[in-house]
């Protein structure tokens, strides 16, 4: 009996100590979508924060890809089991913005926690995406990138092409692909994120609307408009390349990145953030170029961002919100941002981080890493190039992907596919408008 009593007593004692230890530190949860190299870098940031102070602990969990993370967050919110911080990719922004009450707006969170925070420090092309029309920042930009053209210089040489040749227009790219195909290169062209690169950014870059009402910024009653002749021409070109075996379709997300890193694909359109993986894995000389455009329009406009921002979800204690604010403020620190930018290829989202990177001579020793930033900020943004704010956009992207698959496998013309995508997408926009009135 005595021993049992002793065990119980010691257990109780242990539980007490464990309890006080847990109380001493406020623990907050962060759900995100990063695996691979990006996941390692994210883990590094979290560890750095946890080590930098003794009041808060951040625990991060990967919930799958961007869509899966968003859905896990939403489902958890309904069940009241949601994390403090949720990573939401740019496509989900409109859905969260419309869900007033599901999040604590960034400006509010920082004010309540008494955290010093300067929303003006962010690059406006990025923060504009997450800011209301009256200038209130709702979420914290975390990783933002823009699509660029990745070049496998070794394969270019193999195709008998000058690896430094001009690839600024789709016409020139087409010529290069012809040459590569003729030389027996198996995968001259591949792309990641079809809708994002070839319709969304394509629209901004050519200064044509992707959707009405300033791409949705000006109201929920927006309608899709990416079935213009210029759009159709481009998608038809991709379809033709696919039929001729010059463009290989590998999947809807960033599956093609694997082929590029393995040295199979000669030219790839992918996010500038492909940098982390390509730098780590590529056993060939690679180059970064601006996204090509159609020479017919004047000089290209700017491209828009993809990536995610961090949302502080509502319904958490004051203490936890304080921890969240401290962590988010930490993430926006110049040294953290500059390192993230240089390691990953994501844009430097604060102006200070961008200029610190420039000062350090990073761009000089890593040519091409500054292209994404230049491409995004090269012109004054127009209402077509500010970004997109469309409800149910993840599903609309799914629809676009489906329809584009029809073009690539030759069962549909670009005209039919894009018309159908617009029509089906508009149905979802109306449904979203109705649910969020």
């Amino acid at each position, binding site marked *: 009996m005595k021993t049992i009593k002793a065990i119980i007593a010691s257990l109780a004692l242990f539980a007490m100590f464990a309890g006080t230890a847990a109380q001493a530190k406020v623990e907050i949860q962060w759900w995100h979508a990063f695996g691979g190299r990006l996941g390692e870098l994210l883990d590094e940031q979290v560890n750095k924060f946890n080590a930098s102070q003794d009041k808060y602990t951040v625990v991060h969990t990967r919930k799958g890809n961007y869509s899966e993370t968003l859905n896990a967050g939403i489902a958890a919110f309904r069940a009241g089991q949601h994390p403090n911080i949720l990573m939401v990719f740019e496509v989900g922004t409109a859905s969260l913005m419309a869900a007033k009450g599901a999040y604590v707006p960034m400006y509010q969170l920082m004010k309540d926690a008494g955290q010093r925070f300067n929303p003006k420090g962010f690059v406006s092309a990025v923060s504009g995406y997450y800011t209301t029309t009256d200038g209130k920042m709702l979420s914290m930009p975390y990783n933002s990138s823009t699509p660029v053209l990745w070049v496998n210089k070794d394969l270019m040489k193999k195709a008998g092409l000058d690896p430094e040749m001009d690839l600024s227009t789709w016409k020139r790219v087409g010529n290069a692909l012809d040459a590569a195909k003729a030389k027996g290169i198996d995968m001259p062209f591949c792309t990641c994120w079809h809708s994002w690169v070839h319709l969304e950014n394509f629209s901004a870059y050519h200064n044509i609307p992707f959707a009405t009402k300033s791409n949705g910024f000006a109201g929920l009653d927006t309608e899709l408009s990416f079935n213009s002749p210029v759009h159709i021409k481009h998608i038809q070109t991709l379809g033709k390349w696919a039929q001729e075996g010059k463009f290989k379709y590998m999947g809807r997300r960033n599956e093609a990145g694997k082929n590029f890193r393995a040295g199979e694909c000669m030219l790839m359109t992918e996010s500038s953030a492909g940098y982390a993986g390509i730098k780590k894995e590529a056993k060939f000389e690679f180059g970064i170029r601006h996204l090509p455009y159609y020479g017919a329009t004047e000089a290209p406009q700017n491209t828009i961002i993809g990536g995610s921002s961090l949302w502080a979800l509502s319904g958490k204690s004051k203490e936890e919100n304080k921890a969240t604010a401290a962590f988010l403020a930490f993430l926006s620190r110049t040294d953290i941002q500059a390192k993230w930018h240089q390691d990953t290829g994501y844009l430097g989202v604060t102006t200070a981080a961008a200029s610190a990177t420039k000062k350090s001579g990073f761009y000089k020793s890593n040519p091409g890493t500054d292209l994404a930033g230049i491409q995004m900020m090269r012109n004054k943004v127009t209402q077509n190039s500010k970004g997109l704010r469309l409800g149910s956009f993840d599903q609309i992207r799914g629809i676009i992907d489906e329809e584009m698959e029809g073009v690539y496998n030759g069962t549909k013309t670009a005209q039919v596919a894009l018309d159908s995508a617009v029509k*089906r997408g508009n149905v979802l926009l109306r449904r979203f408008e109705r649910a969020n009135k």
Partner: protein
Amino acid sequence: MEKRVFFKGWWLPALLVAPQLLISFVFFFYPSGQAIWNSLFLPDPFGLKTEFVGLDNFRFLLSDPYYLASFKTTIIFSTAVSVSSMALGLYLAALADRLIKGAGVYQTLLIWPYAIAPAIAGVLWLFMFNGNIGLASYYLKALGYEWNHTLKGDQAMFLVILASSWGRISYNFLFFLAGLQAIPKSIIEAAAIDGASFWKRFGSIVIPLLSPITFFLLVVNIVYAFFDTFGVIHTITSGGPEQSTTILVYKVFSDGFVSQDLGSSAAQSVILLVLVGILTVIQFKYIERKVHY
């Protein structure tokens, strides 16, 4: 003569059926009721507000050509899975039944795939047919056949049917083998003495005697193809390309949990519920009559 047992009083029978009733309520009536209720609303994803829309969700669904196409996909898929896995199961069972030596080893090996969860089976097949690293796609390419199930709907369909049938063959094999072994040897021997060939014996004795099992398997396989193949489809194609492998159940999931359109998803569940009800009634009313017990 039917035997009936009467209980005195009501509390003992009530107590005896209570667990079953409770389970039916928790796992069937409550969720079904929820689905019917939710199908009349259009909620926002976070559950912050909701709007009563009457039958609008159903109207929205039935005017969606992809939803209607999903019916066709489901029929093709479940027919192909049931027929192919049952035919192969029967074939293998007939062969294994004739084995004299090492029957146990063969039987064990043939049953093995059944132990693999659908999602894992999906991943296995996906690896083999992966466009980047798959062995099967590599050899197909060497033979001059371009394999890319992420783009070609018929290839994707073939792959999910293959992966779904594979594990199922074992299950069907097991039941057919048991059925074959239950057929009295004397009947078959008598027919053989009368001069009936193997195929004649198989066609006019074995198949009719197997019909109860075949009927049972048909029901079970169709239910499997309708509902349990979710894992396979999710891991291999996620319903793509162009929704060519989106069966009804997958659409419930993808509209509800990927697209966060819970109203539409609930409406689909209700339609599915009705459909399965009808299917079961048809099966037991018309097909069962033709079955010899």
